[in-house]
């Protein structure tokens, strides 16, 4: 399931809902992206997540489907927040669940790498040094590239 929302989410509650009454799941990985008060040496007071409504949901659904195609996942969830956020706020949640841990770990990393580079979200940072749009990172692009072949066996 994928969700794009302004409101906060509760990682533990989302995990509970996902694994409730399931006895085939042996491993779950929950990734949370948290907002930091500093980025690239600059203080950040507010970070605003912009997205392309419609295309963002479509992109996340496609990325999730790709993960479920590549790994034997029993459950998965992506929640991406939009709007203004403050330091310490949760930004994004990815949960993957599988019979074994390797699939859950790999799929969670894959989802994070791909959603950073293949879904239409943009971060704007505001702080004492002014406002700037965050630039894409080569490290994110490289991280996404490693999944273009078939998954690690």
């Amino acid at each position, binding site marked *: 399931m994928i969700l794009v929302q302004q409101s906060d989410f509760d990682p533990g509650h989302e995990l509970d809902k996902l694994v409730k009454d399931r006895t085939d799941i042996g491993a779950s990985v929950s990734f949370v992206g948290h907002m930091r008060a500093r980025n690239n040496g600059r203080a950040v007071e507010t970070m605003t997540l912009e997205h*392309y409504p419609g295309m963002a949901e479509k992109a996340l659904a496609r990325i999730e489907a790709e993960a479920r195609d590549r790994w034997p996942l029993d459950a998965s969830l992506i929640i991406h927040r939009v709007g203004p956020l403050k330091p310490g706020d949760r930004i*994004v949640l990815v949960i993957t669940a599988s019979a074994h841990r390797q699939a859950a770990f790999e799929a969670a990393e894959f989802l994070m790498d791909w959603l*950073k580079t293949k879904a239409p*979200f943009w971060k704007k940072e505001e702080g004492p040094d002014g406002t700037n749009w965050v*630039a894409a990172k080569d490290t994110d692009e490289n991280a996404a590239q490693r999944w273009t072949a078939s998954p690690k066996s």
Partner: protein
Amino acid sequence: MKILYFAWFRDRIGKPEETINAADCENKTIADLIRLLVERGEEYATAFEDISVVHAALDMEEVPLTTPIGKARELAFYPPFTGG
């Protein structure tokens, strides 16, 4: 056809979207349209200055700038994604 501008495209051009005459796009690629837009004024010229960071989607599907616009109803311009 509707053109959408995201992130600093919107900031530089000064509007989130505009409607363009479909006839202006007939038989044109996205790159052709960018050349037309740039002639409109400084704000467009600045937005499309560095073509290496210009990304475009036709009807919510990312495509290369060499793609013909065809009968798309929505064209979006945006910088590389930075979500997550």
